[in-house]
């Protein structure tokens, strides 16, 4: 029901459900794609907040392998478009 940007912010509300209650595990996943407005300035501002490994893992579980395993230092347009797609256009339902 949520986009991967939200999945990257959510934690489990049950105390001690794993070491840091993050990230939530997917179950019976289906995905939905919905176009969103591309805004590179938003993405650049949000980048420092991302739990990168959790995002890449989540994207791969949903079949998207466009993101590199390490967060890149050079933010070129292709990378930002992939990041935009993963964060805001892929919805786990």
């Amino acid at each position, binding site marked *: 029901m949520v986009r991967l940007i939200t999945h990257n*912010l*959510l934690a489990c509300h049950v105390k001690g459900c794993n070491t840091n209650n993050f990230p939530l595990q997917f179950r019976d996943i289906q995905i939905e794609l919905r176009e969103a407005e591309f805004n590179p300035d938003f993405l650049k501002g949000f980048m420092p*907040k991302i739990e990168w490994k959790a995002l890449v893992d989540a994207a791969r579980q949903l079949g998207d392998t466009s993101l590199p395993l390490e967060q890149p230092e050079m933010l070129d347009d292709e990378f930002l478009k992939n990041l935009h797609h993963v964060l805001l256009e892929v919805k786990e339902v």
Partner: protein
Amino acid sequence: MAPKAVVPAVVDCDPQTYEDKNVHAIYDEIASHFSSTRYKPWPIISAFMSSISTGWVGLDAGTGNGKYLRLPLERPSDIFTIGLDRSINLLRIARHAGQSVPMITREVVWGDVLGLGWRSGVFDYAISIATIHHLATHDRRIQAVKRLLESVSPRHGRILIYVWAIEQDELSKRAIPTRDGDGSEWTGKDVVVPWVLSRPAPSQEKGPGEVPVKKQVFNRYYHMFAKGELSGLVHDAAKDLGLHVGEQPETSSPTRGVDIVQDGWERSNYYVELRCWEIPE
């Protein structure tokens, strides 16, 4: 919109059970009618959302029909607000509202404002508009403010809270006492506010030439805030979390705090705007 009538209420059972019956169940029933009356963002809330930096993410705790999720209107994709609410029917509206305007990001999560459902301090801002006044005890209202303070960045987190005031526009002639007998303590007032829902009546009740309408009344619980009570909650919540209240001091010793930037009354509501600050180790 101010209510036409308020009736004193007594919270006579477990507060969670009381809220389930007198708040959550009612919003699920009246969701679409309620939503049709709530569409215009208030100026102070719009201004707050317009002042949020690009790239920031935020939480709308008690989002209702989600009318603040599309703000700021002039640059909606610059920030990302997630709406949280206990009413699944209001969230259905929040998620689909404004679909005629494509490319606007809306995200909603079903949950409780007293829950800990997020990475600690992960949000840059949080708003809670007309929500905390539905919590049935003082402790739960403190808890809600604590959750807001915990959900935003200790370094720069910004928060805006609106609650219903005892001092009402249209009801100003009805003096509702805001202080205890000895005048030393503020105290709010527990009330229920009727919501009249008109539904088409079953066809057999139809009289000749009449539009059949069946009226149903739902009494929603509110805690009407007294003057000073909302900032009092902030002080109590900050104390529990070990935060100083006030401006960031000119000191180098590590400490954390929250500043009350605005504390006011607008159109029958009290509001506070908060800013978190931290002097790191």
